[in-house]
């Protein structure tokens, strides 16, 4: 109760708009999808992250210049038996991060199939990022950086090598996605699916309410 007294109006800051995006993480099991998200959302890392069942949902807001970008993150399970779920999540998504483990070649090829599937099935305007996770285990590296970079360039993907453990590049990759996402477009695939809504409040209303608050 007491804290509410000092509570700010929601979204009452000065930035002009709030964008809400649906982001989905895909990749082979045990490549570190959940760890990546956990690092991004809560800044935590667990050595023994339990395996995800089905899919987990998290949100995180990042500020980008004058825009607040609100990510609705669907962290899907990597296990084979949950693959049938994936379309449900990437169908209305505006962004996807395909994760692989740089110490495991199979996960990289699996990541490539995911990219293909996304290009084929997901919305054409989807922003795809490729993340080579576990960069802290560089001594066990199997997938070379260049190889992945080349692949990413060929397919027009964002690419970074990340490490959930050391937090390397974790925020960066999300920010990069946020930057790349269109923020003005009203009619995306999102609004039709009803999943990723974008709330763009009109300036006039904003101003009026803002004034009365002050």
């Amino acid at each position: 109760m007491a804290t509410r007294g000092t509570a700010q109006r929601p979204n009452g800051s000065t930035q002009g708009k709030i964008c809400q995006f649906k982001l989905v993480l895909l990749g082979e099991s045990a490549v570190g999808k959940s760890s990546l998200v956990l690092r991004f959302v809560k800044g935590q890392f667990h050595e023994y992250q339990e395996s995800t069942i089905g899919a987990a949902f998290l949100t995180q807001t990042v500020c980008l210049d004058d825009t607040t970008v609100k990510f609705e993150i669907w962290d899907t399970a990597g296990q084979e038996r949950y693959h049938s779920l994936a379309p449900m999540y990437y169908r209305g998504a505006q962004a996807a991060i395909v994760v692989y483990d740089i110490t495991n070649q199979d996960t990289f090829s699996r990541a490539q199939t995911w990219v293909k599937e996304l290009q084929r099935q997901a919305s054409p305007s989807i922003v795809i990022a490729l993340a080579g996770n576990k960069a802290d285990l560089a001594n066990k590296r199997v997938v070379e950086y260049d190889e992945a970079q080349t692949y990413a360039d060929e397919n027009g993907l964002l690419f970074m090598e990340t490490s959930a453990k050391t937090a390397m590049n974790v925020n960066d990759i999300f920010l990069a996605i946020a930057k790349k996402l269109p923020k003005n477009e009203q009619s995306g695939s999102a609004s039709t699916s009803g999943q990723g809504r974008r709330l763009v409040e009109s300036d006039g209303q904003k101003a009026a309410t803002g004034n009365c608050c002050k």
Partner: protein
Amino acid sequence: MAENEFVPNSDECLVTEAINLDIEELDNTEYAIPIVEESPTLESILMEPDYESLSETEDDIVVPLGEKLGSSETTSIGSHLSLNSLNKSSKTAHKPYSGVILRHVILKGITSQIVSANERVNAGLASAVAAGGNMLVIGTSHGLILGFDSSQTLRWCDQETRHQGSISALCFNYDGSRVLAGFVRGHILMLDSSNGKVLRILTDVHPLDTAVLHVKEFCPIYHCYCILNLSVQSIDSFEPVTVIIVCIRPRMRVVLSHPLTGAAIAPPQLSWQLVVIQTADGSRVIDPVLALARDNVVYFYQVYTEIGTRVKLSPLRRMTLPYMISNLRWLNPRSLVVLDTQEKLHLLDVRAQDNLETLDMSRVGISYASSHFKGLSTGGNVSKAMALAGERACYNTVIVFGTQLLLLGTKSLHVICMRTWTERLQHLIVQKRFPEALALGLSFYQDKGKAVIGLRGSKQRRRQIARDKVCEVLVQYMDELNQCLVDENTGYDTIVLTCVDYCIQLENLDLLFGKLWDIVFESEGLKTSYLHALEAPLLDGSLQPRLPPLIAQQLVTLYDQEDKVDSLEAIVVLLNVDCLDIHQVTTICRQRGLWEALIYLQTTALGDFTAPIHQLVPTLQNLLQDPLTTLSRDCIKLGNAILVYTSCCLAGRGFPKDELPEGMPQKAKADILRALLAQHSSLANDMERQYPYLRTLLQFDAKGFLDVIAIAFQEPEFTSEMGLRHRQRLIDILLGIVMSNTPLTPKNIDYITLEQQFMVLIFVANEVCESTVTLEYNTLNKMIDILCIDVHMELSKDFKTKRENAVLGLLHSKKLCNISDNTLLNLANRAKFIRVVELLYSAREDWVAVCECMILEPLRHHDVWPWLENLPTVSLNQVISVHTSTLVTINANQFATIVATRLQNKIDTILQSLTNNLSLEYKLLGALYQIAQYKEEDVSLELTTEHLERYLALMCELEPAHVVAHLHGSHGCRLDEALKIVQKWNCKDAEAVMLEKLGNYQEAFDLLLKQFENRLEIYRQDEASESETVHAAIQLAGICRRSAGNLDWMPLVEVMFRSHSENNKQKDILNGKLLRLILESLSGTSILSNILEQILRNPSATSGTMGDIRQLLSGVLTQSRYEQTLVETTARLVSLELHKALETSLRDAGRACGNVSITCPVCRQPLSHCSDHVVVFGCGHGYHLTCLGEPKSCYKCLNTKGWAPIATNVAHTRKKQLLPPEFLHHKDLVLRLAPSCSIPDLEGTLSAKTQYGSIGSLSSNSPVRSFVTIVKTSSFGHLDLSIGDMSNDNGIPDSVRLPTCILEHFSQTCIIHAPIL
């Protein structure tokens, strides 16, 4: 009048909406009346706070204004214009004038002009008002007419006619160019409304010295006007007011005559309105509706024209109000405004008959026209009734102008109008009454709103507009909530609840999940309330089961924290999978044991039908191994969930509800079957037995699981050829589980109890019976062996029957042919399966054994009788000799029948065998006695005397109460033996009966008397009931009577009298009763004088008074008279019967008989060859007397014995026709009523013009201009209806005399409506 009502060129077919539309547009643009011009929305108030318009908002009406008015009051004669002095505004505390729907405004400009006119030029108080065009005129009590324009400025003032007294009526013509003004002294002026110039003075139309109560211009085409005055005679009684509606064109006739009753003081009311009426067939018509009211009842009449031009009125409805009506006006087609005598203004919704709002109008100080009615200015020569009726008349001061109600107070002019719907919402919002505003808005949205103004367009459009507006309100409300956060207001959760509720009802999910969520997300408390508020709409389906993932996630977290697992499960099962955080939900479900939700997730989200079995059945197994003997709640919940899930899947349905999508059912069925039939679980250890899942489910609830399988077997997957193979496999596996080769100890976790084993076997047996599966010989053998096990354990009887049925089923379906009879018989005997044994015996045709089986089985032994009857005597004897006592117990009567028909010679033996069981013997004897007594055709049984005496003896022993009745019947015993028996068993009553039978009356009497005395003694000690004593007395009296004088019954009477010696009131009553009873019954047999003597000698018996003796005597006499009558009647009947018989005999004897043959059929000789007589029977056969034997009968027709009478042909006599009574025969019969009452002398009435007064309301304010409405109370005499041409400025108006017929009507009625075309 207002253009909106008299739209001359508008279409014939006006729709309500169109009318409303017009009003709306005029309100904003053309209406020059300032009040309408101004739309006091919130914006306008906020924008221009200093704006002092001529019209005031409700908040401006404050006490000082009233005081100002009050202070300026002068003592003119107008001061008694208003009767309202009683409740004039003197209250200091006041609440806002206006209501939510009605807006109350004082027209300040006009009000101040009235006040100043009163002060400066002594204009008096306002007495009448009229509005039309863009002008508004007000008449005052001193004869001034003030003309105002739309901006409330005084344009002209007419003072010329001050001497004519108060202005009593005002009226505009239809285009507002002219004004008619009526004065209280009968003067009528026509003015130009624009400048107040007098155009005409109408002198001829109205008798002077009579108040003009109404002037109306009612026909725009002919410019006719109508002035009403009513001549009034002094009358004492005020009879019911009647409304008469007269059609003037094409010819004058009365359309309706409707009496209005009510208190004398209640003025009659009339009001017209075009209303959309929904007819029975759903179509809509627009017709004028007339509202008639008086006292507290409103009648609605619809005016319509039938084919042709005939105008008709049909009643619509009747409405009773809880107050007395003082004025009644339509405000719009749906709303009626009623001013009651307490000066409360009520807004009524006509369709729903609801009172929407009530406003107190006492501050207005309404100007009443009572002085006009009372004729104060003309000398007051009016009747009391008239004066009373005018008490609350405000016809000219409460008028409707467009959609506004003008209320003229003595010093002010008030306007009431209905707010438009947006104004109403705004009104509430300004007062921060958001919930009310939302409820109102929702009612608009749902098209349930009442008195809605300004919302128009198609239904769809209206909804849209309303929705947008309500959403706006909702947003404002949410902002309010936002304030709450800062203000620490504690009532926030109700606000959240309301917001959520309305978002859902308005189907505005964007608002719900967007703005509202953003607001509540900030605060934990609000969020909690919000999430709780979502539960109910989700569960009842008013909210789509699709939430934004974040909200769903929060919801799940919250409910998990709050331990509301049941609700959580219900919600999870409901929600779409794609909005759930599956990881979170699954984890919680596992922890909390929400198995249904878990299964739902696994199947719906993952399409994995095997997972639930693979994961949950082992869990169940673990729970089952719990050392506790009783199953825990969790375990049962899980087990049931699995069973239901299995059943759903096997049936191809979704779990826990809905259907599976296309193509899924087959997959589900196949998957679940595969999972169930898995040989080993996924995490099997080496110890695990085969088919762990089936085993576990059987262990959990064998019956339930088998039911599931049985239901599944109905599916095509198990009935096709392939399906049958599946079925066979499943059965084999089940058998394998329950009949394992290595028996398990109960300690083993895989142990299957005997009960479960039986259930499976019974299930299998049923399947085998239906030939859907086949079993190997060995398996079958083993199965039967187990089924027929003789269980010593305490298993329910039910179970045994089921097993038995299973075996029987197998036998019937001939599946056990391979097993020898003897083996089966042994097994069945071991298990005591009597029906099986019986079946086997009947197959062998060993009927004796079959019967024995049946006798042994308590459920079916009643069916044994037909079997016994069909047995050969020897076998029967054999059966009976063994089972006599059982059979008698089962049904003694049936047994007796069989014995009587088949084994009469064995009766002795049978009875012998029963000697050790007396009751059975008695039962059998009783049954036999019954058979012997009521002989049927095929059974003839004679019981020996010994048997009968034995029966009597047993009866004495076992059922002494029945003995007397038995002895009265044919008991068949030797009398002396019977007497001995009853004496032996000490049955006194029976003994008396026997003694009487033996003729020993005296002894019987003594016996009974002794008994009676004893009984009386017992009774005296309060140990016997009264009825018993009475019964004994009756018995005694009976024997005395039967003995018919052989007995001296005096001792009885003496006993009776002796008992009187003690004084006990209550007992004496009984004694008196007994005495009377006895004396009455004896009066037939004894000499009356004896009785009388006895009575007189013992006055104490009758407590000595003559009255009691009289009662006694009369009883005795009645009895004796009755008996005498009885004897006489009987004698008469007997002689009558004798007479009849004699008559018949005589008639037959005297009848001639035709002979059919001339020869005697016996000797073949002609009848003429006769030595003695010829006898001819009724059948026509003749015989020689000598040839006939004794008794005499016709040999040819043996059935006709004796002298058969010949049927006589009864001549057809013509039936008498029933004729109507004499007086009806005349054809020219006419219905005569009571003598007609004398019609009052019309001439006299009409000529009595000496005294005048007037009352009335002329309402041509109606949309139908062709009606003149005249209100007149009864017996007021004649009426002049003057119809003038207004265009003719100096012409004498055409006075139309109503036809005599109508006038005749007038003499008793009072309101006229006259249409002019």
